[in-house]
């Protein structure tokens, strides 16, 4: 079953796209991430031009995030106040990101710098999360207690930053923190999102857990909440650049919203620690994939892109 895509200008198999939507929706709902890291390469793999693949996956993310968010909302597990603060920070961050992007483009070599930064980030975050969740799993299973570690310089720095002025209470997350911390955090992530061209859920969720120390029940829902805004903004900009294929997006949206429902419901059946270690493994897998692609000889050292 084929359908011709008006913007991408190629026919595509409907069933394949529906399956892609289901899978990415499931992952997105389960972990509270956008899932662009999965959708974009899959679409490119079946022959969709890269620019259109990126635009389409951002549109699809809105649907899967909304679908999952509504479940979390009903259970009261979304910190809307924190979500809005993160949206504002991310918004400014993306503007700064665009400037940095233009500057780096002029000097060249943007790819290598950004890729290395990202791999290092993902690697450290993934490993940290994995170690922590394994420790806690062992703790609860065998009653092992770990020696209390001395606070690292980084942790002390964070603690100090949290005591800065503009203290605000976030009752849903059960934290009181200086407004600067979530704003600066989401700004930095917003910059990286622009430079890497992907959603940033991989960075936001670990930041919510280990830096902001939000109550773990609200992390997934709050992440989905702020992703909707980021994805809507990106979709809009992509449509203005004529990169959005609405037929392709509509197909993916249909099943990714369903996948997200199943994923979110599954996440409530798995305990938080186990879920977190799965996410850590996922992050490490993506990191590994990036490392491999950086270090292996490419099948073709040239690549071709048509400008419409």
């Amino acid at each position, binding site marked *: 079953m084929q359908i*011709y895509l*008006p913007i991408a200008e190629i026919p595509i198999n409907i069933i394949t796209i529906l399956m892609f939507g289901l899978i990415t929706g499931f992952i997105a709902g389960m972990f509270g991430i956008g899932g662009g890291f999965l959708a974009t390469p899959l679409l490119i793999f079946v022959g969709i031009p890269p620019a259109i693949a990126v635009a389409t996956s951002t549109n699809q993310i809105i649907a899967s*995030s909304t*679908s999952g968010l509504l479940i979390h909302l009903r259970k009261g597990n979304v910190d809307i106040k924190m979500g809005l603060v993160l949206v504002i920070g991310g918004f400014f961050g993306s503007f700064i990101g665009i400037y940095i992007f233009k500057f780096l483009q002029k000097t060249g070599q943007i790819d*290598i710098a950004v890729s*290395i930064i990202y791999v290092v980030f993902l690697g450290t975050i993934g490993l940290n999360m994995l170690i922590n969740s394994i420790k806690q799993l062992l703790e609860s299973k065998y009653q092992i207690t770990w020696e209390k570690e001395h606070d690292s310089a980084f942790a002390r720095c964070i603690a100090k930053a949290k005591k800065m002025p503009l203290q605000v209470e976030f009752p849903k997350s059960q934290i009181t923190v200086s407004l600067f911390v979530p704003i600066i955090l989401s700004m930095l992530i917003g910059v990286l999102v622009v430079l890497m061209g992907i959603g940033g859920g991989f960075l936001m969720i670990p930041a919510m857990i280990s830096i902001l120390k939000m109550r773990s029940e609200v992390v997934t829902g709050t992440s989905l909440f702020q992703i909707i805004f980021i994805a809507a903004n990106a979709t809009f900009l992509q*449509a203005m650049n004529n990169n*959005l294929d609405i037929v392709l997006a509509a197909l993916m949206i249909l099943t990714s919203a369903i996948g997200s429902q199943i994923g979110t419901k599954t996440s409530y059946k798995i305990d938080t620690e186990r879920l977190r270690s799965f996410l850590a493994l996922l992050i490490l897998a993506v990191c590994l994939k990036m490392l491999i692609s950086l270090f292996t000889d490419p099948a073709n050292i*040239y*690549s071709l892109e048509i400008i419409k």
Partner: protein
Amino acid sequence: MMRFISIIILTFQFFCFATIKTSYANSIISGISTSEIEIDTSFKGAKILLFGAKGYVGNVIVAVRGPKKQFILTKKNELFGIWYNGKRVKLNDSYSYYSLFSTFIDQKIPEQLLSDLELGKNNIDLNFYSADIDKKAIEDFRLYFLDEMQKENLYLSDVEKVDFLNETLFKVMLEFPKNISRGTYSVDIYLIDDGSLISFQSIPIYVKQIGFSAKILNFANQEPLKFGLLAIFIALFTGWFTNLCFCRFFGK
């Protein structure tokens, strides 16, 4: 069916006309079964029949050229074992489709003429644009571009044969792959004899989207703002509606 009948009638009329005319003229005359390719939601590629007649001398060469587009080519470089995107070159105004059909078996055609007429894939004019790049690098980019376009079936790898029904009548089946771009294509028919061009004809083919597909394309191009908002709305609505259905049928 109607189209098929009209092709037969057209072909018949044409052949009657052509046999009379070409018997005393050293020219070439040809026509195509349709001058429009319409892309709808079920488009899988298209075939167009080119037919024509020539005098008793000369070789027929048919070149089909797609609308000119911009391309960007990137080459990966290695630094301490890390692969990254290095040199990028822009390719301005180059054919998005190219295929060639010919009869030249009995005569050798001078390279200069082929090059002037851009016949053969090595003679296609590729306008590379880059500030600092040497000839060798350009040549590598050029070879890669031709290779890649062949893989996409947009450039035909070999020169196909022109079929002859008798000494003067010929036909060529032009095949357009499913991934062709919209725009105006030109079918250029050359008659070459004794190393020089003696007759030339160019027929345009219009490739355009129709129906639902065309409506979406127009909407996206003319009102990107509304288009973007609609895309966001569809996604939000579907997310909400799916959740509603799940609540109703599978419980909370």
